[in-house]
């Protein structure tokens, strides 16, 4: 028997959670790259709802596989629930978590950004370094198409989207709080497809609730590029009736912003003055997916196999989460979490030379429509002829119990992703 170093032992012996902790603390804490590949290695790009879940679930399914997660942010901030930071119902801290839980599973978390993918060499570039992989899972999230709104690219540091939870969420909450009573808060919603279809309407409810409670003479104008509310339509229409201070304008795509005049212009030529603007720009898959040519002809979203989430364009690369298109599913956190588990299982099966199981994803989206009540949409799916097909969609009524369920869901799913 040959002598193994502790590093080799940990890499090759199918170490479980306990030794994973040692690996994280002792061996990879300071590493900038994981070094040459010695066994089977899965690299995951992006530590959000999809990527963090996938990284953990590969390790849970087969601890002999080395998993490297590339995520530039040191903390995970939940987008779901972050609209409640605007209304002051929740704090951003209550939905901010570290990545130590993943390290305890033996995931090598590197807080660096993937700069390029080289599919022919099966490696990911991180600056000058390269990380080899056997299979790659890309969970790139979304990036914004600033150029699609005139004047936005130049003003993108001051015109807040708050559509990636973090400093912008807190900054927008401050702007809302500082706005004078009698002021006008304008928010714009891009055309589908975008991250979290019900999110903007939940945000409208939260801003309207805050204004109704704290600044009764102020007003919210919602400029929606879509012809109608795109998610939980009847439920949001009913919720909006509780807010006489909310003016909803459908088919009002914002084409231009003039920050000096504090004014936006819609596609039908309406000019709307604002005191506070929240412009949610059109979106596409995260930049790395575009750069690696994982996106389709639209140059925005990634088509994938419905069973394995392998890219239809690049073999050995799986794409999950909001960046995907072509499945009858919303771009939601639950869906990204679901895709993370299914893709992890598929990757482990494929690396073992086995047929991946045909597992359908699940979805639930909760939206808070006041400080204490929520609504929800639930989607169930099956796989038929290799494609994800929806079995049914259910909507809940607006009530406190749904809000309680959403808090239970959040606690559980955050732990499922990172714990």
């Amino acid at each position, binding site marked *: 028997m040959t002598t193994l170093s502790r590093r080799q032992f940990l890499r090759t012996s199918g*170490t*479980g*959670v306990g*030794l994973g902790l040692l690996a994280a603390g002792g061996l990879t804490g300071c590493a900038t790259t994981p070094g040459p590949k010695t066994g089977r290695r899965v690299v995951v790009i992006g530590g959000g709802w999809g990527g963090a879940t996938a990284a953990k679930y590969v390790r849970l399914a087969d601890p002999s596989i080395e998993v490297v997660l590339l995520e530039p942010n040191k903390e995970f901030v939940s987008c779901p629930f972050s609209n409640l930071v605007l209304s002051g119902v929740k704090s951003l801290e209550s939905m901010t978590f570290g990545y130590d839980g993943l390290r305890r599973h033996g995931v090598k978390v590197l807080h660096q950004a993937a700069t390029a993918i080289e599919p022919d060499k099966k490696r990911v570039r991180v600056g000058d370094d390269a990380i080899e992989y056997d299979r790659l899972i890309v969970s790139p999230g979304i990036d914004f198409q600033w150029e699609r709104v005139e004047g936005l690219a130049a003003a993108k540091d001051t015109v807040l989207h708050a559509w990636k939870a973090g400093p912008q969420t807190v900054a927008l909450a401050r702007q809302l709080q500082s706005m004078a009573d009698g002021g006008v808060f304008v928010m714009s919603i891009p055309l589908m497809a975008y991250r979290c279809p019900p999110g903007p309407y939940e945000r409208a409810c939260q801003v309207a609730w805050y204004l109704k409670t704290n600044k009764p003479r102020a007003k919210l104008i919602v400029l929606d590029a879509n012809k109608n509310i795109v998610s939980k339509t009847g439920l949001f229409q009913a919720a909006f009736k509780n807010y006489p201070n909310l003016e909803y304008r459908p088919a009002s795509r914002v084409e231009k912003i003039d920050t000096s005049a504090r004014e936006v212009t819609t596609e039908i030529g309406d000019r709307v003055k604002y005191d506070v603007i929240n412009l949610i720009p059109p979106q596409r898959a995260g930049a790395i997916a575009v750069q690696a040519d994982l996106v389709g002809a639209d140059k925005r979203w990634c088509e994938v196999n419905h069973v394995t989430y392998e890219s239809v364009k690049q073999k050995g690369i799986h794409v999950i989460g909001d960046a995907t298109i072509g499945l009858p599913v919303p771009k939601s956190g639950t869906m990204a979490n679901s895709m993370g588990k299914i893709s992890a*299982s598929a990757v482990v099966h494929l690396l073992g030379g086995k047929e991946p199981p045909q597992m359908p994803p699940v979805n639930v989206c909760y939206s808070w429509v006041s400080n204490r009540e929520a609504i929800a949409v639930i989607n169930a799916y099956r796989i038929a002829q290799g494609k994800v097909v929806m079995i049914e969609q*259910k909507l809940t009524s607006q009530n406190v119990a749904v809000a*309680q369920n959403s808090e*239970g869901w959040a606690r*559980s799913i955050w732990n499922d992703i990172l714990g």
Partner: protein
Amino acid sequence: MTNSIRLFVGCASLILVLALYGGAAAGPLDPGYPKAFSCSACHGFAGASGADTVPVLAGMQSWYLKKAIQDYASGKRPSPEMESYSKMVLELGVDDVAGYFARQKRQPSPVRLDSAAVERGRAASTQCVVCHGAQGKGDPAKGIPDLTGQPPGYLKNQMLLFKADRRSPGDETLKSLKALMKAIPDDQASDLAAYYSSLR
């Protein structure tokens, strides 16, 4: 290192690895695991729910989980979330899913309990022991579930659903249970939920 020491270290390492790996692999190697991992988004990994209103599935007896899935799917138990997901479970194979959760180690809810409420609940529980037993473990032969270690929010919500006749409406076998629930004030339902959550 001599060969015998190397052999000893090697064997000890293997035993350690098997011990650690065994715990982790009990899930993924189970035939029900891939059919059940979607549940962890709400019910926690391997059914160890940490949420107040979401039941613990880890170690749940399979007869009860199967009944619950059937009742949710048919709408007898009202839950928009569970109605849809139960239909998925029935398509994927309820026996595999229920078997998987039954094989997991029982994890009592970690939701913190008010000790005064637990004591009040204990005192009020005499009305429940007739069916659920002195230890709250129920009786599978009579279709009576184990309540122990479930989250208090979940237990209370079920009592309120029975009280309002929204769970299994029209079910003759639950008539006396619902009559009892109607006599229990909501505050006492909270106490009873805390007490049964505290039992192991």
